[in-house]
């Protein structure tokens, strides 16, 4: 195996111009290295830039600044010299397959299309293998997306992404449109596929409990920046950044024995607008531990107690503050 990461971003910024001189800084300086074969979760609230980052990694959105490499080769080089090769390397799974699949194409046509474009032989066999891989019956082939249930449609979305046997999947909230009993089925499918195919998966998610179940590593985003990342279990057990701590605390437990007895932290206020992030640490307007330095100096990612990284003036390799 090559020793460069499956995905690497350095200093990636994506700014959208909303008025002369005014920009929404959706992604504002993201450095990320995701080793091959990992299942990486990116969490954060709406407007934190996680979806924009995912779309930028696959090239659906171009970066304003910074570099992205896929398997050691720059994304711009891939796109200029080997677009088809990139499509065979990395695929995107959308949140709502109803919006990403053609409504007039049967499932068979949808799954066959990438195979035709890439000249893959034995298409029928490959399509059937894909159905088996995602747990769909043969009878799905002649149907239209609208006539399938949400869970089945997401299976089709995943099958189509896997058609060309890519090694990297980028998934944008692939579970959020699904009911809980169905969501668990798809979570199990992702875990199974990752183990079976050795995929590198990046999953954008807001359900922290699901991320903890299937992602081996995680990054937490706030206002366009990564504020913390590391091994999921360790970050969630011992979050070093006050925002991560508050985010974890905000998730209620489905078990009332835990929910009624645990201590909770409720943050005041809303996240500020990404068009006008606060100076210094972006979290300083809501952080219960804020002090002078936070308003002047933006913290950078540094080694944290859990072995990963955190961007907080109160976090060091051997200790951190707790809200």
């Amino acid at each position: 195996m090559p020793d460069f990461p499956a995905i690497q971003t350095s200093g990636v910024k994506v700014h959208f111009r909303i008025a002369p001189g005014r920009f929404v800084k959706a992604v504002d300086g993201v450095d990320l290295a995701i080793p091959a074969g990992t299942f990486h979760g990116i969490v954060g609230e709406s407007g934190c830039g996680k979806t924009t980052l995912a779309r930028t990694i696959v090239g659906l959105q171009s970066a304003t600044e910074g570099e992205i490499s896929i398997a050691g080769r720059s994304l711009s080089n891939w796109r200029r010299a080997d677009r088809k090769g990139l499509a065979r390397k990395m695929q995107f799974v959308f949140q709502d397959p109803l919006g990403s699949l053609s409504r007039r194409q049967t499932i068979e046509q949808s799954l066959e299309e990438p195979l035709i474009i890439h000249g893959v032989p034995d298409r029928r066999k490959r399509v059937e293998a894909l159905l088996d891989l995602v747990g769909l019956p043969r009878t799905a082939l002649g149907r239209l997306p609208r006539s399938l249930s949400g869970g089945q449609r997401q299976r089709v979305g995943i099958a189509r992404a896997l058609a060309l046997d890519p090694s990297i999947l980028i998934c944008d909230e692939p579970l959020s449109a699904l009911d809980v009993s169905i969501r668990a089925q798809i979570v199990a499918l992702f875990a199974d596929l990752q183990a079976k195919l050795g995929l590198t998966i990046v999953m954008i998610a807001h359900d922290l409990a699901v991320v903890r179940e299937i992602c081996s590593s995680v990054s937490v985003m706030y206002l366009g920046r990564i504020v913390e990342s590391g091994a999921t279990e360790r970050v969630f057990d011992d979050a070093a950044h006050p925002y991560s701590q508050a985010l974890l605390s905000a998730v209620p437990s489905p078990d009332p024995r835990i929910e009624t007895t645990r201590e909770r932290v409720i943050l005041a206020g809303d996240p500020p607008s990404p068009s006008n992030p606060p100076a210094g640490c972006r979290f300083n307007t809501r952080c219960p531990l804020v002090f002078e330095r936070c308003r002047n100096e933006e913290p950078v990612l540094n080694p944290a107690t859990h072995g990963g990284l955190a961007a907080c003036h109160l976090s060091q390799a051997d200790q951190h503050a707790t809200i």
Partner: protein
Amino acid sequence: MSTASGPIYEVGDLVIDLYAGNVSVRAVDGVSFAIHPGETVAIVGESGSGKTVMTLGPLGLLPEGVTVDIRGRAQSGGQDLLTLGPRRLSELRGRSFGVVFQDPISALNPMKRVGPQLAAQARRLTGATGREARQAALDLLKRTGIPDPDDRYFRYPHEMSGGMLQRVMIALALAGKPKVLIADEPTTALDATVQAQILELIRQLQREDGIAVLLITHDIGVVSRVADRVIVLYAGRIAEEGPAFEVLTAPIHPYTIGLLDSVPDLRKSIGEPRQGIPGVPPDQSMLVPGCRFAERCPKVEPRCRTHRPPLDQVRGRAVVQRVACPPQLRALREMADA
């Protein structure tokens, strides 16, 4: 929770058919429940379970364009909502029920400042004068935790964040001093840290006013945090009902068990990957005899496919818990006898 005064709202044998074109769907199929002052009842179910139709249907709040046929009873304050004409229903709704929708931006007029919208609502529902209504609107903004209410009064909806708008929506629902607050997925569109704020607000308002809260949700964590009682709906019928603590910690209906098993808990150790509940909910345009969960149920028996399971009380528990699953109730009895 006091039940001495009797229920503030009571629904009996509710059946709701929805028609679109020549397709009809039995969205709600014989549902009875009651809610008492000061109580929070969560109605839990997945999409298509009928939780929204069952709650908003009797109030005449279903989307336009859908033809509805409602039968049964829906009583509040000595009146049956189902027998009232549109005008009387609208009056009763404004005074007795406040409704908070999932998406506040679509419930507010985008062309009007939020304060005057609130004041107009207070005027319409309480007959207050212009000046009183304005004061009432300011008080409501204050009570719902909106910072700097004197300034926010003059803001347009688009100038406010999702969390602020949901607070305005709650203020709007409270303008008529309702006895029952109906909240339809009030935190689904909100971020986790803001969701925690809104749930806390609803609880606080309830403690202050003693109003009843009927909370429609699919989020078991939300139920666990705020509900006194829970009603679990599956395909238009109640599968299980009881105190939230008992239902969430010792569920009896196989659907409730499967549902709770599908939800991961951030604070528990990770076991085997969850498999969810196999299969999909039934097509409700087909009226079949028997239990609607039978096709997906691990405990299914031949009789389940032919006889509708009654919602029976669980014996031997100190609380009132009702379950529509004869096989499970029988198993419990046998365990108790042994």
